[in-house]
Structures are given as C-alpha cells and as structure tokens.
C-alpha cells in the first residue's frame, strides 16, 4: 500500500476543495476550475496552480481568472481561469484603416505570429524558425480576426502548433500529435524525449484502440492568384507496425484542403502540402488512461508506458491531459496517441 498526502497551492486561495486543470493538443487555451470557500481573486487576476503531494508540488497552470461563480447555500466558489493565450484568443485585431488593415509582406511565419501576439500584450516567446516566408510576392492584410485565430491558421498551414505553456510562454514548434523521431527532414523536427515513465503501479485503467478517423491521404492547397498544389499517396503509415501500406481502399482518397491568400509561392505551397500529408496520412492509435496524479504530466509531451497489459507499452504523445485533484484523490486522465 502506498500512502500520499495531497497538497495544492493556488494564488489567492486558501484550502482549495477541488481543482481541475485540462489541456489538449487542439485547444486554444488550457483551463483551470478551482472550487474553494474563500478567495481574494477577482476577474482578470493572474493565478498559478501548483499540484502534488506533501513531498512537493509543481506548477501545472498559470493564467487569468475569467469567471467566478458562488453557489448557495453551501457557499462554494468556483473559479474558472484560462491560460495566458486567452489574451490572444480574445484580442480582436481592428485596424484604423478598414480598407487595407495591417499590411505585411515578405515576413517569416514566426515573426508574424510574434507581432500578432504582441498586439494582444503577450511578450514571452519560444518561437522556432519555421523557414516559411509569407507574402513573398504580394502584400497581405490582417484585420477583423483574433490574434490567436490568425496565428493558429498560419501554424496549421505548415503543420506546426502554437500554444501557451504552463509558464505563460507563447510557443511555436513543429509539434505533431504523435511522438516525433527527428527523421522527417522537416524544419524543427526534433526527436522527443519522454518526460516520465508510467508503469502498472501508477495506472488505474486504460483502453486501447486505433482508427482512421483523422487519416487524410491527399492534401491540396489553394493559394493566391490561382496557385494550386497537392500531395497524395495511396499508402498510409501504421505506427502500430511501423510500416506503410494501403490502409484505405485502392483508389480511394480522403482529401483535405488548405486555402489561404498568404500562400503565393509555389515552393511554400508544395512544402505545406507535403508536411500536412506526412502528419495526416497515418492511422491514429489512441489510449485513454487514468493515472496517478503527477504534476509533470502535460499535453504536448511524450511519456513512456511500461505495462504488462497488451498493446500500451511504448512511447506515447499526451494528446490531452486533465489533472483532477480533490476528495477522490489526485489523478491524471490522459488521451495518449501515436
């Protein structure tokens, strides 16, 4: 039998009752829900959430208070907070020139994203070099869109991801929703190092499955001024076996289209097709697991699972992670992918 004493600290709150922090590869923001009896927090306050045990806690969330709800008659206060990216999500870009908006030309993707984030008051960055330049031939305008939506659209074009980490740093990386090996030849492809190993003694339940729901074996791009490029393959990658073969019926293509006036360069367009095809043309192996709470666990990282239960041993990408802390103990409910 293992005994652990739960511990948690939240800015502006003493003796929290229950804490839930959720984050996902796909989500614009991480969210925290904190239940307590007394709080000095108000809307817009910046909070840090540390979870763990009496032996030590670590930060799992930092962000802004978005909502406060008090329940009667028991007086339980529920505080909802979103991570720092919420500033970019809520910041609607409105130029004082309605005709031309904000004009950009010949700008790298990372420089444009940094500019858009700074408009929203975000100044901490970890932006990798994308080697993609936007508006090479023609200027383009940005207006009447949120900073996050536009930045995410750029990241999607090149099959990268933009997010805010738990320390409030805006991050732009070649982050695929599966463990990366550093062998794709794409810019920013770095082999993942697992952040933790989980064994059967730390796993409460797990299921295992795979599907072709997200598989796309054809990617087309509609760019500026009639620019069109595509990439396709009859064969798809099976990460379960490590082999490539015809997963979909012969001659059958599931297509996706990226359309953006930002793309006015043929090489850029073809690379974007190739990168997205490499990301989507594969089976998805998925393992929802419930594990003992560990503050080190977070979405967009890779962990190693060592289990005697069939099929789940190996390195897995944490697609989503929910820290659940309260009377039911401290658990992490994760969806792992490869």
């Amino acid at each position, binding site marked *: *039998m293992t005994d652990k004493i739960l511990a948690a600290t939240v800015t502006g709150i003493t003796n929290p009752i229950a804490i839930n922090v959720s984050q996902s590869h796909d989500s614009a923001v991480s969210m925290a829900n904190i239940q307590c009896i007394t709080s000095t927090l108000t809307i817009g306050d910046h909070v840090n959430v540390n979870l763990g045990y009496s032996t030590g806690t670590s930060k799992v969330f930092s962000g802004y208070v978005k909502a406060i709800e008090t329940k009667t008659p028991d007086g339980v206060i529920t505080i909802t907070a979103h991570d720092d990216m919420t500033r970019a999500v809520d910041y609607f870009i409105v130029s004082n020139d309605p005709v031309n908006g904000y004009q950009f030309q010949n700008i790298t993707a990372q420089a444009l994203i940094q500019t858009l984030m700074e408009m929203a008051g975000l100044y901490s960055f970890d932006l990798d070099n994308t080697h993609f330049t936007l508006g090479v031939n023609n200027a383009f305008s940005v207006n009447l869109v949120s900073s996050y939506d536009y930045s995410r659209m750029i990241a999607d074009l090149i099959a990268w991801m933009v997010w805010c980490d738990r320390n409030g740093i805006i991050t732009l990386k070649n982050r695929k929703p599966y463990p990366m090996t550093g062998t794709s030849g794409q810019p920013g492809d770095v082999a993942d190092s697992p952040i933790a190993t989980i064994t*059967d003694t730390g*796993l409460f339940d797990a299921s295992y499955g795979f599907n072709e729901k997200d598989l796309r074996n054809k990617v087309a791009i509609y760019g500026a001024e009639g620019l069109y490029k595509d990439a396709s393959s009859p064969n798809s990658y099976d990460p379960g076996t490590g082999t490539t073969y015809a997963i979909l019926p012969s001659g059958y293509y599931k297509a996706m289209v990226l359309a953006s006036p930002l793309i006015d360069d043929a090489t850029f367009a073809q690379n974007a097709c190739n990168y997205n095809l490499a990301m989507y043309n594969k089976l998805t192996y998925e393992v929802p697991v419930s594990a003992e*709470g560990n503050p080190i666990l977070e979405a967009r990282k890779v962990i190693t699972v060592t289990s*005697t239960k069939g099929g789940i041993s190996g390195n897995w990408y944490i697609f989503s992670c929910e820290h659940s802390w309260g*009377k039911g103990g401290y658990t992490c409910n994760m969806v792992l992918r490869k």
Partner: protein
Amino acid sequence: MSNWTYNSIRIFTDDLRDDKDQTIARLGPLAGGTTLHFYGWEDRITKVSCYVVGLTDKNALEALTETAASYVLMTPYGSWGSYSLKHASFQLLRAICQTLRPDLSPTSPVFKCDLELYRDI
C-alpha cells in the same frame, strides 16, 4: 446525567457519540496494491440523545438551528467544544409528572431529543 447544557440550555443526556472522519481516496492501480491519497479530515460530529423539559427549552434549542452560529456543549467533564446545531428532533414522551426539573411545573412536557452537532473550531 446532571449538569449538561448546550448554549446554557439544560439537557439530560442519555447517550453521546463522537464521529471523526479522515478523507482518503482509495485508488486501485493495475498492479502493486492499493494507493491511498490523503485529502484532509472532517471535524468531529457529536450526536447527543437527551431529555429536555418544558416548551421554553425545546423552543430555545430549535431556535439554534436558525442562527448560523456555534455554542458550547458543557458536560460534567468540562467543555466538549463549540458546536453548530445541524439537526434537532424532539419526541414528546407520555409523562404524567416530571421530576427532572424540580424548578419547573411537574406537568411540564418532557421531550426525548436527538441533537446532531458539528464541531466548530
């Protein structure tokens, strides 16, 4: 049975039971035995079975369920602590002549009373 009071209201205690709980999550991993997560504890809950004589004291006890405040439970052994009254139930007994409270009329009603008290530190 003498000298028991709750907020200075005289009660004649027949039985007292203290309950104390620790909140423990019991988690079962795939291997390696049970994992216990200690969350915290609950303060004492005291249940008192007693007799109350007279409508004045009965009504005074009932009123304590509406005050959102805590009061001292005094016993022959000293203060048992400060408690909020969570629940009070009264059962009128078939009594012709009460002798518990000589200071009251022998025809005063006698109630069997159960109090559920939450310790308030």
